[in-house]
Every structure is written in structure tokens, then in C-alpha cells.
């Protein structure tokens, strides 16, 4: 399982100038952080890697499949069972309870034991007691935990997180970070995240900086591991 990005340009014209050519390979079970200033193109890069966006040129291989050759529907099929995504602003359905939000992907793909699995996921993020609360009744940290539970409830092989702690206070942010790394370890999930929090990034096995549209490696507290980065 690996992911590879060579010079990429997203489809939207306003981002052309942002990514000038980056190359990155992520190995299974790694955790990779991409940092950079606001507007540097971090989120766009993440959307390209997750197959949410299609590049106009370059190559992206996700879990052995070349994304640039796939149609919207084919990319959706790749995402369906193997990719999880966590958004900075949680993106929970306001009219669905915490449990229903987690049930959504399971029901969408008619997975077995949906309710048990959703409850288990809620339990894992420590929110079993908030199962029947609407997002509006939850704190920011709780909402993000629900979003995390929704992202990994389908047991994805790779989890993308776009500024997962961007909207949270320091203490809550740390809890969320811990949760993400625990899941990375316990579920053997590859984790690719975007953040501007260097402390958070430092806890990942790799940290890359997006500067002037190019990816540059930063020193990490851990060893380089399976990283295979080519620019």
C-alpha cells in the first residue's frame, strides 16, 4: 500500500499556481504531516491525494490505483471502503444525531451490523453517552470525535485529515491528536494530515512542508521509516 504524487495540478484553475511540482510516497501504517502557511495549498494537496479532486496533470497512485485515469465514480468507489476523511469544520449533518452521522457511510454501502459497529466506534472515541445528541448539542471537540468515528467506522486503509484540530482549543486538540495516533496504531491505518501546528506534526513519522508549491522534508522526532520522497 503506498501513495505517490508526482507534479500535480488540481482541476480548479485558481490552484494552478499553488502546486508547482511535488513528489511524495507514503508507506502503509505511516503517519505523515504536511505543514505550511495558510493558502499554501495544503488542503488542495490533501484533496488530490484522497481522490476528492482530479489533477490536470501528474500522477497519483492511491492503494495501487492511478487516480488521474479514474472517473469521478471510480474514484468514489476507491474512497468508499478504503479512504476516510476528516474535515477541519467537522461536516456533520446537523439534522442527524451523533449515532446517525456515523451510521451514514455504513448504511450507504449496506454494511453488516451497521448499528453495532457505529456504537462501537462511538465507544472508541468516548462518546457512547452522546449517541442520540444532535451536533448542535455537542462541543467542538465532541463533534470532531464524532467525525473521526465516522471516518474510521468503515475500517479504511488510509485516513486523511484536513486541519483536524484547527477549530479546537489546545486541550481538546491534544485529545483529538492522541485519538488519531491511537487509531493509527490500533487500526493499522495510514494517516496523512495537514496542519499548521508544528507540535502536532512532530508526532508524525514524517513531516513535510509545503512552501511555494513544493514539498520539503522537515526533521522529525522519529526515524524516516518507510518514507520515500522524490522531488
Amino acid at each position, binding site marked *: 500500500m503506498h501513495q505517490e504524487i508526482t507534479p500535480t495540478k488540481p482541476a*480548479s484553475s485558481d490552484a494552478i499556481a499553488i502546486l508547482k511540482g511535488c513528489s511524495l510516497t507514503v508507506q502503509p501504517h505511516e503517519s505523515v504531516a504536511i505543514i505550511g502557511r495558510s493558502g499554501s495549498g495544503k*488542503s*488542495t494537496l490533501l*484533496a488530490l491525494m*484522497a481522490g*476528492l*479532486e482530479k489533477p490536470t496533470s501528474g500522477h497519483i497512485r492511491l492503494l495501487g490505483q492511478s487516480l488521474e485515469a479514474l472517473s*469521478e*465514480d471510480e474514484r*468514489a*468507489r*476507491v*474512497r*468508499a*471502503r478504503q*479512504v476516510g*476523511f476528516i*474535515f477541519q*469544520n467537522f*461536516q456533520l*449533518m*446537523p*439534522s*442527524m444525531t451523533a449515532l*446517525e452521522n456515523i451510521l*451514514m*457511510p455504513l*448504511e*450507504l*454501502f*449496506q454494511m453488516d451490523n451497521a448499528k453495532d459497529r457505529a456504537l462501537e466506534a462511538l465507544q472508541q472515541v468516548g462518546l457512547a453517552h452522546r449517541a442520540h445528541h*444532535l*451536533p*448542535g448539542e455537542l462541543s467542538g471537540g465532541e463533534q470532531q470525535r464524532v467525525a473521526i468515528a465516522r471516518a474510521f467506522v468503515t475500517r479504511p486503509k488510509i485516513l486523511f485529515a*484536513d486541519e483536524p484540530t484547527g477549530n479546537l482549543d489546545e486541550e481538546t486538540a491534544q485529545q483529538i491528536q492522541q485519538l488519531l495516533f491511537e487509531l493509527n496504531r490500533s487500526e493499522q491505518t495510514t494517516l496523512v494530515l495537514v496542519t499548521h501546528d508544528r507540535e502536532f506534526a512532530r508526532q508524525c513519522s514524517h513531516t513535510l512542508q509545503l512552501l511555494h508549491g513544493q514539498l520539503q522534508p522537515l526533521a522529525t522526532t522519529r526515524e524516516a521509516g518507510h518514507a520515500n520522497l522524490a522531488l
Partner: protein
Amino acid sequence: MPTLRSDLLIAHRWLWRALKKGEWLWLMLAIIIAASSVTLVKQLSETVQQSMLRQAANALGADLVLRSTRPVENNWRTQAEKLGLQTSQSTTLVTMALTQDAQQEAHFQLVQLKAVENNFPLRGTLQQSDALPFTPFNNAAPLAWIDEKLPALLPLTQHSTLTLGTLNVKIGGSVRLQQGFSPMNGFAPTVLIPAAFLNQTGLLGPGSRVTYELQLAGDAQTIKRFAARLEQQHKPEWQIISATAPNEDLQKTLDTAWLFLDLAALTAVLVAGLSILIASRFYLSRWQSSLALLRALGAGNVQLRRLFALQLGLLAFWSSLLGSLLGLMLFKALSPLLADFFHPLVTVSPWSALLLGIGSGILVLWSFAWQAFQQALHASTTYLLKAPAAMPQGRHWLLSFGLLLLLISLMLGVERVLWIVAGLIVGSTLLYLSAAGLLRIMRLWQGQSRGWLRIGLSSLLKEPGLVKIQVISLGLVLFILMLMTFVRQDLLQTWQATLPQDTPNTFVMNIQPDQKAQVARILADNALTPDLLPMARGRLVAVNGTAFDPDTLDTPRARRLLQREANIAVLDAPPAYNVITARIHRPSQLPEVSVEAGIAELFGIQLGDTLSFNFSGQRWDYQVTSLRTVEWQSFRLNFFFIVEPVADRPLPLSYIGNFHLPESDGRAESLTAKLAQQTPGVLLIDVRRVIGQIQEIMTQATWAVSALYGFTLLASLVVVFTAILASQQGRVQSWLLLRTLGAGNREIIKIGLVEFVLLGGLAGLLAAVLAQIASGLLSQLVLKTDWIWSPGLWLMSLLSGIGLLLVIGLLTQQRYLRQSPQQLKRSLQQI
């Protein structure tokens, strides 16, 4: 792999969950309003129409009557029966009835003898009067049922014998006959006998003036087809009388009422459509983010489209079903009221109303939410990362428009769609341009303003797209309400003016010149002083010297009119209640004739033409110097032709007059007897029952129009609420920001006032423009009067727009005015 079946299950589940939490509420409400109004109006108008039809049929004794001066060929009866229609035949002739009193003195009276079959009448029942004991007909011994008026004219008891030609009959009872039962009703009292005994009277023979009738009853569609088939024969001796059009003028009035009902339902649907349009914009961002999320989670295009369409479709279906059932329930609740008005109240099957309601609800959702649906479907996953979504393409507008047309044609029929398309295109362009223009002016004003006014203006202009929709829909709603108020008032006034309380309902005619003074005296003794107008019976035989050949005329009505003698008034000038539409100054020495405009059109008569009339064998020429319109349904004395009296033209004159007698007045009977005794040959015709029937129909239609008006008013208020709530989120955000910045209630109220007053004012302005254009067009094209600039209308429109919005503003904003920034933040998440 997701299938349609599994997606249907998921869609149902998600929709149900959302509904439980109050999601989709405004859309649901709008669909419910649309479906319930269509169902209610359809069921109401069907019931009212069928009840009126049945009432008319009961009065006629059948759904359709073929009246002929020659025997009706038997094959028509056979054909009708093959089609499943009930049939009955009758033969009517005028004869002298003879009876003897206790002193064996003979008494004579002119009567209409009507020989009927056992199943007569096919519709309604003969109302027995209490005057004499009633015995049913049997074919063993001849019996006669006599008109309840006859005992006043002849000394009849239950043991009397009546001699009709060579037949002696016993009296089997007296009956009250409704208008339409007899071809010459009112001229002479009717005597009914079984058809089997008609030959024994010996009255049928060469030269006898007989009217033959084939009466038909059955399924409305079959009757309609059969009537059309009869009409196609163009037989001059036939007159086809249908219960659907007992009276042409009344039919026109009722057509206006039906059109109003249809328009009211269409208005309710369009108004509901507008609220769907607004509500769907309100939900759009939510739909976009949820669809983008589903896409991010890995749902494919087909599945996304299917899931969303299924949810909307299910919402449309269930809400329409609910709305239609609500419409039926409302109808049920109104039924006791209806039963007071209609006798009998015909209960119509609710299925077609239910189906139409459901169909309209579904169509109204799809036509007005289609744009938002497409826009939401195009939301890419990057929407979640805050990238703008693609706008819907032109073809989607076309589809939306197409669905709307389908909806309108479903409700009003295909033939009216062309006009509506043109109206919609012109109307919406005009509306859009006006709204855009008004907003541009606001923007310029914003640049010049300061302080709270500037903040108020900027919060109004924050979402120009939404404000345009708000102004247009509020303006349209106000306009529709004003139009309906105006049309309703006008309709009611016209109806009331058509048949005022003192409408003449009794006619006295066939007064010979030497009887005039005597009749006037008898009437004066009964406190009645009608004008007795001179008239002569005559027939139009030529126009400009060219004789008419009835067989060459296209319309049966024209042929009938030519074959019969008409009542021609002999007066110096037309009565004041006739409206002269065209006149020329006497161009020659010929005496003048004034012609009714409708008949002039029918025969192609122009001003200046020379008309030749045959008055009992004498032919006289007159020149047309004026055309007039006449309100036939007013029951005043009206004539197709009014000729100038000329000293050297001795016309066979008689006199005619009319007056009002209250319904319960007993003078009619005594007058009939007195006139018959002292002035033989003078006829008293009582049309009180007919007028009563028409007045009842008018009351019924008035009631139906008012009920629908009220319903539309309610539906419109919901739209206004939706329109305001659509921008609630932005507004609460502004309050939050202003509160956080330290603004007090005073400032917030001032800013809110600017927004609501301006929104109401702009909508009022737009409504006034539309109303001014509509009233202008109406006065130019329909009423043919001058275009009137009406400042009152502008003022009323502006004030009602502002007033309405202020009340709604107060209702929707007051809870936020009491909230702290933190509470406002929480409220924002719940909107």
C-alpha cells in the same frame, strides 16, 4: 453494489429521520398547501358543478331533452338506450279542458296537455301539492295530475272529471311543476296524463300544434357525446336543451365563477411553488454540503442522484398525499355548509381530486426545486473545503419551466397554456428587471448613507440573489391578493346587480288593446302598476331585400329564431336599461328599428341595413339605426327588435308588462283567476321559481369564491413567512456580530426595521406596478374605459407590503432580540 431497492430503503430511512427532527418542514408545508388547495378546489368545484347540474336536471326532469315539433324518430331512442342512457318520451299539446261544477255548469280553460310515460320524470320527482289526494297512474283507468294552479281557474275537486278532447279523466292529484318540465310552461296550466291514453283524446291530428320530447338521463360524458351527435343533425325542428346550459347568460356568469375557482387553485399552487423556490434556496447549502459529504464518503454519481431524488420524491409523495387528504378533510368539514346550499348535494367520488392533488404536489415540488436539486448535485467534494459550487445550466431552467407548464395544463387544461406561457415569460422578465432595478437603486443609496441605515441596507443587499427572489415572490403574492380582492368584489357586485331583490318575476302578456285599461285596473287593485309596453308578433324575413332561407344558416339558433315569430316592441325609443352600442342618424325616410347586438352579429346585420318583417301577413321595411346590448338574465322586458310606431302601419298590437311579486305572495293565484275571468286570453306568467333558482346558484357560487379566496390568503401568508425565514440565518449572524460589537436593542431594532420596511416597501412597489398594469389592461381591453392612474392603489400596496413585513419581522425576530451573543451562537446552529 447499491440497488434501487436498497437506495429506496436508505432514502426512506434518512428522510424519516430528518422529518422527525423538523428538517424539510417548509418544503413539506408548501407541498401540503399546494396539494390540499388543488384537492379542495377540485372536489369543491366538482361537487358544486354536479350539484348545480343535478338541480338543473331535476328542474328539467332530465339531463338532456330533445324537443321537436315533429315526432322524434324511434332510432334516436334506441341509440340512446344502446349507450346505456335512460329515456322517456312525452307529447304536449295545447287544448281546452272542460269540467262541470256541482250545478252542472260547464267551465273551460286552456291547458297544456302532456302525455308522459311511467318513468317520467327521469330526474327529480314530481312535487305533490296538498290541495288534492294523490293517486299513482295506472294503465287501467285514465287519471290526470293537474297543475296546482288549475283549481284556481276551474272548479275542480278530487271527484271531478276533466274532459280533454274525447277523453274523460278523473283527477289523480295536483302537482307543482318546475320550469322546464313543459315546453310552454306558464302560458297555460299543465295537465299530465299517461301516454297510453293520448290517442283516446282524439286531439292528435293534422293541424294540431304538438311538441314531442325525448328525455334522456345518464352518465355525464355519454350525455355530452349524445348531445353533440344530436347537434350535428342540424334539424331545424329540433331544440336540444341540456341541464348544463339551462340558460346561456347564466352559463356565462357561472363560467366566470369556475374560472375564478380554477385561478384561485392555480394561484395557491403558484404561491406554494414560490415558497418551495425560497425554501429550496434556504436548504440549498445544507443539501450541497450533505451531497458533497456523501461524495467524499465514496458515493457514486448514480447513487447520489438516486438517493437525493428518492428523498425529494418521497417527500413530495408523502406530503402530497397528506395535503390531498387534508384537502378532502377540509372538504368534508365544509360539506354540512354545502348541504345547506345545494339540494340535492351530489357527492362526487374523491379519487380524481385526490390523484390531481397528489400529481400537483409532486409537480410543484419538482418544478420549483429543480434548480436547487441540480445545483446541489453538482456540489463537488471541494465544497467541503469551501470551494464554490457550479451554477445550474440553462437546460435545467427549461426543464423547470416545462414541469411548471405541465402542472398548469393539468389544472387549467391545455387550451389555456399558450396564454399562460406568454404571460409567464412577460411577467417574469418584467418582475426580474424591476427587482434588479430596485436593488441597483438600493445599492446606490447604500453608498450615500451612514450609520445604522448603511448597516441595514448592507444586510439587505448581502445576498442580492435571495433578495431578488424575496422581493419578486412577496410582490407577486401581494399583487395576487390585491387582484383576487378586486376580482372577487367585482364578481360579487356584478352578480348582485344582475338580479336585485326586486327583479320582475311575473309577466302579464297577450293583452289586447281593448283589454289594456281593464288589465291595468285589475293590477292597480292589487297595488301593481307596471308599464304595459306595446308589441307585435312578427318574423324577420329579409335583410336589404334579400330573403332569408333558414336552411342555409349554419347555427340552429339562427334557424330557430327565423322560423318562429318574435316579440317585436313598438316604441319611440329603446328602454333606458338597454345600452346603445352604435347609432347612426336617420339616413332615409324609412322608419327606424333598433336591433339587439347579439342577434345583429348572428345574422350579420349592420347599421343602415333595411330589415323586412312579416307581421301577420303584412310586410314592412325598417332601417337599422341603432344596436343595443341587453341583459337577458335581468328578467326585464327585453326585445331583439324595437320598431318605431308609424301611424299608417296598423300592426297587430298587444301589450306586455312585468312586475315583482314576493315569493310567498298569494296574489298570483287570485290575479290569474281574475284575469282569466275578466280579460280572457291574457296570460300571467310566474317565473318566481326560476329566479329563485338562479339567485340560489349565484349565492352558491359567491360562497365558493369567498371560501377559496380565504384559503389563498392563508397560503400566501405561509409564503411570506418562508421568504423571511429563508434569510434568517444571515440575519441572526448579523445580530450576533452587532451584539458582540456592543450594539444594543435600539440599534438592532433600527437596522432590522430598515431591512423589513425596505423589503416590504420594494415588494409593495412591485405589486403596485403589476396592479397598475393589470388594471390598465383590464380597462383598455375588457371594460373599454380610460386608463386610470390610481394613487390609492399605490399607497395601499406600499402600506400593506410594509405593514405585513413589519408584523412578520416582529414575530420572527423578537426572540433573538432578548438573546446574548452566546445564545445567538447556539440559535444559529439550530436554524
